[in-house]
């Protein structure tokens, strides 16, 4: 297997962080919708905490994507052929 193929596999594995982020986001959104349905007058507070949590979860996905991008665009150039 060539080095480039290994890099591609590594990038694909790094992009798998999206799975965790998606699971977390779906869970949080489901709970937020549930609590708004139970108590509609608290929707403002629920929305703002949900937004904060979603940003934090999105960050992990972005880190994974960033690592994948670094692997794809930077690593092949820095390895001597």
């Amino acid at each position, binding site marked *: 297997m060539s080095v480039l193929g290994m890099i591609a596999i590594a990038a694909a594995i790094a992009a798998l962080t999206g799975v965790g982020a998606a699971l977390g986001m779906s869970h949080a959104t489901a709970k937020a919708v549930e609590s708004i349905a139970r108590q509609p007058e608290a929707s403002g507070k629920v929305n*703002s905490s949900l*937004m*904060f949590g979603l*940003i934090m979860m999105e*960050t992990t996905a*972005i*880190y994974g*994507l*960033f690592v994948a*991008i*670094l692997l794809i*665009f*930077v690593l092949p150039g820095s390895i001597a052929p």
Partner: protein
Amino acid sequence: MFYALGFLAQAGHEAKPGGLPEIDIMPHRIHLGGMEIGSSVLVGWLVTALLVLLLLCLRGRIRRFADKPKGLQNFLEMIVESVYNFARGKVGHNADFVAPMVLTLMGYVAVATLVELFGLPPATEDLSCTLALGLTTFVLVNVTALRQFGLKTRIRRLASPNAMVLPIRILTDCVAPISMALRLFANVLVGGIIMKLIYAVMPYVLPAVLSVYFNLIHVAIQTFVFGMLTLNYISEATE
């Protein structure tokens, strides 16, 4: 100067017809007056000059703020009021100290990213620029906290349950600006890469639709997120 701007505009569109576009995540280097600087530095200066000019124009336009706002003044007051109210909801009485800085940061982030629409490489596509913004936030958070508590109480609050957590809390505080910088940088970079790929794959109808999201709404979300995270860190440090 104009030579450098032309070079920047060219650097924004390096897509070769046919093959995949030339994607380079390192910032472009340009020579200006014997110095080698990143293109984001130049764009950053440009954005700063643009914002200062805009604000001077606004200052010239509105000589005195009327009691009954109308037109432009109404619009400006709406923006400032909304940021102040948002800050007040997050950090309480510190809002008067913090809100101008947050609005400035958000304005800079928005304009520095939106210059992509004019063909320039956005300044926030460079990690140095976003790291500088993150460090500004870090300084803002600590200045606000020190202003409220003083050094002794601040350290005591950082070591609040017991002294064991002090290093961990300090590490968390120091990682926050890096996290914000990486988040903004990666988001802008990824938006740019996706748009370049779309331009390469189908340059006809699709970019017109998708660039509304990736160049406008995405930027608005990131600007909002930057301001909100700044306020969140401040409220965490001061409550």
